[in-house]
């Protein structure tokens, strides 16, 4: 029973996970879920989407509606509440990769970057994005206590050092 519930949750959480790419998206969906969780038992019956519609109109309602169509979503209030709590904990536990860029990326590129990193690590990764023009170009990635830096600023510094010390770049 527990195993089945875990599998069902893993399947049910996937659409939420796939809708998030960076910390901003994660914090937004966590806010929505907290709001829905608070509104579940206010003399309402039915699915989560029907209970939450009066409190939020965000994209998370659409995800719940899709879940309800597949029949994965729990039916009674207590299970719905547990489902929401588990979902919040799951999303909070997703791995975070810190990314420093020199420019503001488009949402499309951000999604692509998140998916590529998730593919490399074989698990969903949330991007904690920082924009720093001083790196000029390229990116700095930090994950699991390790750092990989490939920036034009570092390359410029390297070339300039060699030029100033008289060595060939």
């Amino acid at each position, binding site marked *: 029973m527990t195993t089945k519930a875990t599998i069902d949750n893993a399947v049910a959480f996937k659409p939420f996970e796939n809708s998030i790419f960076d910390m901003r998206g994660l914090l937004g969906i966590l806010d929505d879920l907290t709001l829905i969780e608070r509104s579940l038992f206010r003399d309402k019956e039915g699915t989560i989407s029907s209970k939450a519609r009066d409190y939020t109109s965000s994209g998370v309602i659409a995800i719940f509606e899709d879940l309800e169509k597949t029949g994965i979503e729990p039916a009674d209030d207590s299970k719905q509440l547990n489902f929401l709590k588990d979902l919040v904990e799951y999303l909070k536990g997703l791995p975070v990769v810190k990314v420093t860029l020199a420019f503001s990326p488009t949402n499309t590129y951000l999604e692509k970057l998140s998916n590529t990193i998730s593919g490399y690590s074989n698990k969903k*990764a949330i991007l904690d994005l920082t924009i720093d023009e001083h790196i*000029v170009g*390229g990116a700095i990635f930090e994950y699991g206590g390790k750092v*990989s830096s490939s920036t034009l*600023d570092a390359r410029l510094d390297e070339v300039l050092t060699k030029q100033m010390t008289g060595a060939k770049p």
Partner: protein
Amino acid sequence: MNLPIEQNLISLVSLIFSFSSFILACLIFVKILRSHKEKNRELSDELTYAVSKKIDESVEKILGDTLADSRTKIDGEIRKFSEELLRLIHARSAELSAYVDKTQQDQAKQSQFYVANMLAKIEVDAKDYRENKFKEIDQEIRQIVLAAAREVIGRAISLSEHEDLVNKALERAKRDKLF
């Protein structure tokens, strides 16, 4: 036993006479005694004067001799003391002169040593200062060039070029086994 009156009278007169003679003799004796006493006093005064004069003369002579002797002795002591004092002053002066000479030599050596040390320190400080200044200037030039390069390159890079650079950085992170 009954004497005639004449006899008694004669006896009485004789007695009175005897008594008067006695009184007279006493008076004469007293007179003589007084006279002798005055004479003795005059003799005593003369003797006292003479003795006093003799004593004064003796004292003057003794004092004169003693004073002359003492003066001679004191003069001698003063001369000896002056000579000793002069000798000591000369000795001290020589010591002081030697001390001053030695101190001057020591100070000269110390000054030379101090100047030499200061010179070496100043040379080292000047070298450090020069090197630090060169480093600072290098750093400033480097910062200026970097800032200019950042500005120029940052503006020159298009969005797609930025994305390409990030993709390359991501590939490198993968090669570095970051994920």
